[in-house]
């Protein structure tokens, strides 16, 4: 045995195992991180059981708890005593649960730490419903009655819980339909009319600055303005009618501690009775909430609702960036591989490429802000948007500058990947093309670039993945926590290059660290982070697959 151990240490086996251990630790770290993200991110949409209990902490008056259990931890009794709770010092540790109590507007807080030993009569009553509201967060409680505007008929009053719930759900569905109409009028027609009005004002001012404002022109402008104002008034009228309809119905809910709350149906996004749901029902609620997360606007200072504008903003920014980065990166790579004489120049350029890749991203942000936004943007405003001054058009952070900045940041990625692709193309291909009489450019354009296109795609995809996850420079050059409208929409000029936009990565930072209620926002941030990581992982995998296919393709040519 001794001999064996001596051999073990002398051959360096422990070192090999330590090195293997480093790999294992890294693997565990990556998988663990992905696991934490996946569990926390996906759990958020699941309709958890809602518990009911009575809390009888020593020294406090008894309260009723209705809510979800979110986390549990153990605390030493001393710590609790130090914080002023009268617990038994003999018991070493106490279990402490974090309850999500919701009802922020009633209680002031929506999360509370509760000592598990003092909670009694814990049950999961079936009639407790979860009301996701537009304002005030989640409300837990049981429906006591429905109040249905003028139609309400006392004879119709339902005593049966089941049918009351069914009727409530059907009314809620109608109200949601109306709400959708209102949203579409507000975000499309009303927004378009307002933008028309603003453009009219700018055109008038431009004419005035040019000194071309004749009386007839003024008259034209006022006529048009009147037209738009009439349209606006009409829309407002329509909206008012819809508001009247939507605000008619409300529901009476008995919340914890027997507080009765009247909630207008217009303020409810979704309602379900989690303790009463079958697995299929739970799955349905789960998918509804997941769908809402992906396609809806954020609510409540971004802590609830969806992240659709952030997804959209990220995609638009990244696409715009691709327009800039692809030609630049590919041309540079072609130069390095096909045109430049390998020597001092290419060495210096390679050092430059690596340096561009190594410059901290926030430095790009600072550069983008100073050079693009203030210098170039300021000049553009002076030249083309003088009528809007002093309000800046391009002289302020926006979509265009953000994509340009990120294009600079990601250009090395495209160069490196494209160059790798070009290197893999055998000389014989080039020589064959040249021997047939093609010029150098024709060879590159017709033969080399098509063959290298998977490499270019790889580079572009990696660049997109990098840009989608980058936040620090965007914070300086164009991202915003809540954009009033999407950067591409139905309002002239359709693509708003000067607008600020929302971004998934920034959303994570902002909601996770800048929102006043971090505890409430945490699950949503996990979901957003999971979404971002999945997108980036998929992009990376695609790039890896493409690269492998490229290698396979050329392996046959190399022989």
């Amino acid at each position: 045995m001794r001999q064996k151990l001596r051999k073990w240490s002398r051959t360096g086996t422990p070192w090999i195992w330590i090195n293997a251990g480093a790999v294992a630790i890294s693997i565990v770290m990556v998988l663990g991180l992905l696991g934490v993200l996946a569990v926390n991110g996906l759990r958020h949409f699941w309709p958890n059981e809602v518990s009911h209990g009575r809390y009888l902490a020593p020294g406090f008056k008894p309260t009723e708890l209705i809510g979800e259990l979110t986390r549990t931890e153990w605390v030493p009794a001393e710590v609790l005593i130090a914080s002023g709770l009268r617990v038994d010092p003999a018991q070493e540790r106490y279990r402490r649960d974090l309850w999500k109590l919701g009802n922020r507007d009633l209680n002031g807080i929506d999360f509370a730490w509760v000592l598990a030993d003092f909670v009694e009569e814990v049950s999961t009553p079936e009639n407790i419903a979860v009301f996701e509201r537009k304002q005030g967060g989640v409300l837990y409680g049981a429906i006591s009655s429905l109040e249905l505007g003028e139609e309400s008929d006392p004879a119709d009053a339902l005593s049966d819980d089941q049918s009351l719930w069914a009727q409530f759900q059907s009314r809620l569905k109608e109200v949601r339909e109306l709400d959708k109409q209102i949203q579409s009028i507000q975000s499309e027609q009303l927004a378009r009319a307002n933008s028309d009005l603003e453009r009219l004002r700018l055109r008038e001012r431009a004419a005035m600055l040019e000194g071309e404002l004749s009386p007839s022109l003024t008259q034209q402008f006022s006529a048009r303005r009147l037209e738009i104002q009439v349209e606006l008034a009409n829309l407002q009228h329509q909206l008012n009618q819809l508001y009247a309809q939507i605000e008619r119905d409300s529901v009476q809910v008995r919340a914890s501690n027997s507080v009765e709350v009247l909630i207008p149906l217009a303020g409810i996004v979704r309602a379900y009775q989690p303790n009463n749901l079958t697995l299929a029902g739970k799955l349905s609620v789960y998918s509804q909430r997941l769908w809402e997360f992906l396609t809806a606007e954020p609510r409540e200072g971004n802590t609830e609702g969806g992240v659709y504008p952030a997804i959209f903003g990220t995609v638009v920014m990244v696409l715009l960036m691709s327009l800039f980065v692809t030609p630049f990166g590919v041309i540079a790579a072609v130069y390095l591989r096909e045109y430049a004489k390998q020597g001092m120049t290419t060495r210096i350029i390679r050092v430059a490429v690596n340096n561009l890749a190594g410059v901290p991203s926030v430095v790009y942000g600072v550069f983008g802000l100073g050079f693009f936004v203030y210098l170039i943007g300021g000049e553009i405003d002076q030249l083309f948007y003088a009528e809007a001054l002093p309000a800046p058009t391009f002289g302020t952070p926006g979509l265009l500058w953000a994509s340009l900045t990120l294009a600079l940041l990601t250009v090395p990625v495209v160069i490196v990947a494209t160059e790798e692709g070009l290197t893999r193309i055998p000389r014989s291909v080039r020589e064959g093309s040249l021997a047939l009489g093609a010029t150098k450019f024709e060879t590159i354009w017709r033969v080399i670039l098509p063959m290298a296109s998977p490499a270019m795609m790889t580079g572009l995809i990696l660049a997109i993945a990098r840009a989608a996850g980058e936040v620090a420079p965007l914070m300086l050059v164009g991202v915003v926590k809540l954009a009033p409208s999407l950067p591409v929409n139905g309002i002239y000029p359709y693509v708003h290059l000067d607008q600020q936009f929302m971004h998934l990565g920034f959303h994570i930072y902002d909601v996770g660290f800048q929102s006043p209620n971090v505890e409430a926002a945490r699950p949503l941030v996990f979901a957003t982070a999971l979404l971002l990581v999945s997108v980036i992982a998929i992009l990376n995998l695609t790039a890896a697959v493409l690269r492998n296919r490229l290698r396979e393709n050329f392996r046959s040519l190399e022989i």
Partner: protein
Amino acid sequence: MSHADNSTFTAAERLREQAKGRRKYREALDRAAAVTISLGGIGILATLVLLLVYLIYVVRPLFVPAEISSVVSFSAAPSQAARLPPVLLSMDERTETVLRLDQSGQFSWIDLGSESIVLTSRLPVARSAEISAVALLSGEPALMAIGLDSGEVFLVSAEYGAAAGPESGARNLPRRLSYPFGRLPLLTTSGSVSALAISQQRNELQVVAVGANGQIELATGSRQSSLTALLDPASLPEYEWRVARVEPQIPDATRVFIDGDHQYVLALDANDRLSAFSIRALYEGGDESFSSDAIANQPGKVVDAEMLAGGRSLMIADDLGQVGQWFIDVSDGELLLHQARVFQAAMIPLDQIESEQRRKNVAVVDVDGVFRLFNTTAARLLTEQALVDEEIEAMTLSPRGDLLLTESESGQFLAYPIDSPHPEISWSALWERVWYEDYAEPAYVWQSSASGNVYEPKYSLMPLTFGTLKAAFYAMLLAAPLAVCGAIFTGYFMAPGMRRTVKPLVELMEALPTVVLGFLAGLWLAPFVEQNLLGVFALVILLPVTILTASVAWMFLPKRIRHRIPEGWEAALLVPVVILGSWFALWVAGPFEFWLFGGDIKAWLGSELGLAYDQRNAMIVGFAMGFAVIPTIFSIAEDAIFTVPRQLSSGSLALGATPWQTLSQVVLPMASPGIFSALMIGLGRAVGETMIVLMATGNTPIMDINLFEGMRTLAANIAVEVPETDVNSSHYRILFLSALVLFAFTFIVNTIAEVVRQRLRRRYSLI
């Protein structure tokens, strides 16, 4: 026939012509493409240069000395005979109007545009009376305390006025004198008033006058928040005045001052002894007066003195050409004067000193009439300029510090435009300890946001640089061993099959957005570590032990099982071991913490070792940023090891060396430059990382190496502060400077790394 011939000929010729044209077109296209593509390639280099040049372009004005440009000279006095020496000159905010007061009490408004007197007005005092002292309160309208040789002190307010013009909009403000506190004397001293001081702080106005025999009188006005004042903001504020006599007397007091907080009246006597009297004690009774000989003990003799803007330090000019900045500190019943800094302004006696109203700039003129402007925070001579040969009778700096105006004894006015946008910045202010006002000693401080009106900005980059290096250090502490060891195993020992799964995993790790890492570190890891602090330490110790134990255990396993797993899959075997080991370490730490540290290791750390614990601290940053840096180092180092020519290691193995010997004696020395450059690039990444630090620390700019406290890094500081700063302000340029510092650091690191790698690649290709 010939016709046909002709036609075929022309057809052929046409074809040839066409082909020629086509060839020409193709050649032109080829040439154009070559030019475009070359430009594109050079464009990469140009981008890097543009980045550098632009950053330097923004930063450069910080270090440019102040400039005095084209002097304007004019004479505004009606005639030399009627001219009386001025006792006061003052300028308005926009440097349009100069207010001049002469000895007889005659006010003149001089328009700087037309260089002429536009209005005169006399104080309502007797013809024979002469003004013996004046004190001016900065702001508009100008409020002045005027002391006469009869011992009376008045308060007069003078409005600079403005003519209606396109510049000033539609305003047409009158130029006039007014008496907001009545026309009666505010104070009366015995004999002529020899010195005056006036100061305002929030709702309190203080006026101090020195009479004959060192009799010092103090008047304090407190603004009454009356109902009428609340309802009508335009109404004049009402003041309630109290008067006190300063006791004991200072027989030969020459100058008086009031400190910025209105706590003390300061008096300097002919022997340069400074005395301080508590204002509170003067009104409430009790004797709280202190004095100090610190200034008198200096070799020089005081020629002029003035409070620096903000009223926290006294600037003393002496006859040895020195300007001293003194901090006034009363503690433990003693007046302590700290000479914070000294400027050797000239080698000849100084004559006058004048403070700027808002910035910590001070101007001195020596007896030869040379003007010098200093900034105290930056300890920097901003500019110097020889004034005219004649005796300067009065001088003033404009409120914004952009114009100096002097009046010589012949009545000649000289206006010197001063361009000094960033006086508070210097090499020493950025990188050395600076003794700021209200600080007990020189320190490195970053505090960019203003907390008061007259504020001393604290722009030391040291805490930020320190924080950057601290974060990078802890990150590298985790990342370097893990990544290099992992690269060694993956590049040399690992089976190809496993390598194909590990490499994409590392690539995925590299692609993880740092904002996600930062978020997990801040909201998930930080609370977790806080709960399991001892467990985390146990992890660091137990994991290597577990791995080695697993290795021994593996050796003693029967061959039947061992041979089922081919060599090079050890890492996969260790994955469950690592998971179990981590779980065990965290589990075992709980009871240990109760047993050893009374259940709370953080409290123990605080009481026994004096270490503060922040939830978001350097350890969390180390973990999160280490995680971000591992793949960078790993892939480059792995590449360097993997590409070591196979024949070298094969030769070594054939000669009988063990795999480990081959690795450590043959492969690693070959690959070490590559590993070095991997570490450099990793360091560059750690230094520039923004989001992780932003989210995983408290972002307090402190200088403390403590593992359990946070830091603020250069990059995070940029991300936090750039959106809030004004374009082209000093703060903006300093943030650009920190970006430039980051750029320079990563530039050097990356260039070294890249040059090393290029060398290595050539060396490999030679073998």
